[in-house]
């Protein structure tokens, strides 16, 4: 058993525990490499099936390749694909891209962090609680119909890794959130061995983190080993740039890299070329404490 096997087996164990203990379970799928590995692990855990819905929050500013890829995989894997969106904020145009042209200091100018708070954390909260409309893919037509299910989810599987960000390294595999999605970092339940917190009062919900022990390199090694399909945006298509982490078009800068496939990315990661560049460096909303605040607010 090598190290990747060990990581895989622990993640599978955690996924099965989650499925056992939460009737209202879903998995967040950002389309990025981490949550796509998570989706693959779910198929491992459940012998080719994914017995719970996948939830994607569509800010409407995602790069088009991401949406095409999402829908292709949803059809191919027969996923219960649920999409949520903050339509109100989009209609009101209170977003960063919509207000960028305004002069600095204009009260209507929306910052990147405020934009994330609406289109991501806000939309996520509403979608999980069922207070925002959900759309569900009809596997026969490939179209999205209104989801008749508006019940809240109580267990949410998330692809967070401990090596990504300082604050993530404080997570548990099973981490309760209160009614407002808030995360009480100071008072977390104990995790003895492989016994997780699986009993909870009505109103709380639990975030489940099967990838906590994985590193960025592990993720790519696993993608290679299992031949997991990934979005083309991760690879240089001839421009000498590629995305290292995927977000919204207006807030996501590609990095300089000529890695054209998984092998190249692995060479790049191991060579130490990216060593001094934080993984989310291309994400422009992450200034000091920005991410931390978003996380407390429920952002992944």
């Amino acid at each position, binding site marked *: *058993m*090598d*190290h*990747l*096997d*060990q990581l895989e*087996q*622990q993640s*599978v*164990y955690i996924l*099965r525990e989650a*499925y*056992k203990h939460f009737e209202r379970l879903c998995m967040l799928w950002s389309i990025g490499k981490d949550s796509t590995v998570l989706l693959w692990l779910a*198929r*491992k*855990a*459940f*012998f*080719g*099936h994914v*017995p719970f819905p996948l939830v994607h929050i569509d800010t409407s500013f995602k790069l088009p390749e991401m949406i095409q890829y999402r829908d292709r995989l949803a059809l191919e894997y*027969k996923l219960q694909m649920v999409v949520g969106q903050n339509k109100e904020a989009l209609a009101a145009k209170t977003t960063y891209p919509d207000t960028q042209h305004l002069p600095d200091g204009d009260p209507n100018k929306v910052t990147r962090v405020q934009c994330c708070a609406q289109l991501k954390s806000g939309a996520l909260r509403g979608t999980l609680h069922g207070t925002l409309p959900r759309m569900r893919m009809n596997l026969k037509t490939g179209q999205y119909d209104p989801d008749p299910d508006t019940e809240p989810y109580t267990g949410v599987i998330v692809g967070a890794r*401990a*090596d990504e*960000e*300082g*604050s993530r*390294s*404080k997570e*548990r595999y099973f981490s309760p959130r209160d009614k407002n999605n808030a995360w009480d*970092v*100071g008072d*977390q*339940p*104990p*995790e*003895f*061995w*492989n*016994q997780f*917190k699986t*009993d*909870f009062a009505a109103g709380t919900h639990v975030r489940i983190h099967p990838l*906590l*022990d994985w*590193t*960025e*390199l*592990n993720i790519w*090694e696993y993608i290679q080993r*299992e031949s997991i399909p990934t979005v083309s945006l991760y690879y240089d298509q001839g421009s000498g740039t590629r995305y290292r982490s995927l977000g919204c078009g207006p807030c996501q800068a590609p990095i300089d890299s000529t890695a054209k496939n998984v092998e190249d990315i692995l060479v790049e*990661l*191991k060579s*130490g070329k*990216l*060593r*001094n560049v*934080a993984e989310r460096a291309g994400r422009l909303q992450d200034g000091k*404490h920005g991410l*931390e605040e978003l996380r407390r607010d429920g952002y992944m």
Partner: protein
Amino acid sequence: MNFTDDSKREQYQIVIVGHVDHGKSTLVGRLLADTNSLPDGKLEAVRRECLRTDKPFEYAFLLDALSDEQDQGITIDTARVFFKTQARDYIIIDAPGHIEFLKNMISGAARAEAAVLVIDAKEGVRENSRRHGYILSMLGIRQVVVCVNKMDLVNFDAKVFNQIETEYRAFLGEIGAVSPERFIPISGMQGDNLATRSAKMPWYDGPILLEMLDNFQKAPPKVDRPMRMPVQAVYKFTNQGDDRRIISGRIDAGRVKVGDKVVFTPSNKTAHIKSIEGFNTAPRTEIEAGWSTGFTLTEELYITRGQLMSHVERAPLVSTRLRANVIWLGHKPFDPQRDYKLKLHTAAVPVRIHKINKVIDASEAHSQLAKERVDRHDVADLVLETQTPVAFDTVGDNEATGRFVIVDGYEIAGGGIIVSAEEEERDELRFEARMRDFHWVQGGVSANQRAQRHGHRAGLVMFVGGAEAPKHQYARALEKALFDGGRNAYMLDGTNILLGIDADLHFVDATQRELVRRFTEVAFLLLDAGTLVISTTNAIGLADYGDVQALLGDATTIIIDVDPDGKSTAPCDLRIQGNEPEAEVIAKVVDLLGKRQITQV
């Protein structure tokens, strides 16, 4: 954070524990800096930030990723930090020392393979130095190194170091905890004896911290032990067009092959492995410890989560009484008058304290407390009693199936290890059941086929209560109602067994246990025939239920206590007074049968 690790390299999880302010975070920060494991510029950035805010620089700041943590100035949770040496990659879990955060320290330590315990040379052994030492031992962490830190504050004096080592080893010996492998004098702040050997302590010629860590060995693989796999779930994704019925779980120890005969304990059901299932993996005919896998069986068994799969020859222990060491973290004390939930591998059953042998305040030297309950942060040696039998091993035989947590309400309130199975009066009955079940000659019709034909599984509904309680009339009415509803129901009246099977036992000198044994074996045969058995007997009461259960394994039973006086408090599924209309009682039982999935095939 570094990205130069590699999946072929060994990964090793260590935990850093010790009393607050003794220098854990400093030690970790310094290790990161000295092994070149920080992103470039991080150290300088923190130094600059300190200058700007006019705070003295601390290595500990490197770890303080969380804003509120910086505000409070104490490490509040188990951060995971990566660093590497020539030998391997380390995940350090920086466990906090503040007493309030003991549960976080445990979460960190429970995942670790080795531990570094930090003691301040100037302050000496303190409350949490002791408590953490005990907990490491209880958690089963055998590779422990003690760093006597801040040697710079005591002039790098060998005497101070030796004195702390002697005192600390004596304390652990006294409370029966495992003594650490080695003590190392260090200064976290100045980097002495962490990554480089200190010139200031020529009197110390043992390994320095990094050498010590690199020398720790991975626990040997558990493949050569008796096979154990707690059943995590049984999957059947029929609506996806998949008819496989897959018994899933993670193998904790040993190995198993296609064709092997396995037993599920405590149900004692046996079957043969038909296939090993997986997704996107090469087909396998054999699999071993560490894998989260799944099996199909040649015989169709009704198996549920919490059963422990093993080979027949080396089956686990079964009991309702466990001798255990427990650390309690609940806000409310662990109270012998109350029921809790025991989670042991994948089993979850109601549990109660049967007996407290002793309670130890692990923070004090010489500290045995005479107590009737276990308070927050106490450690206790006690006997637990579960409501239904569980399968397990002693922690010495197999850790994963010898450890448990106790849940109070919604919270994990304690954790512990099983030291031994308590001898029980029922051990003989249990042995009888095992021998019977292991060697049972199967007919050509499976339980599942019978269930399909009958439209329900087998089950036992027991009416119990004193001789004056109107049990018989309810049992009769229930049998009739179920039969009319198309069920294969049969009323087993205890009197009929006394008349025939027990005719050789002179009623007066017959032991109660033998009466119960015979009654239960008769019921067992009827259950094997797929019948819904409704029993009513004066001779066998609630007090005998443990014996009945020992013989029946995991057969579904529903107990109805008919109690006109309203005095009975023992656990049962339904308690009635005896004046309720029959139809009402029948409706309740039918509901229970549905809930227990007897009438849902």
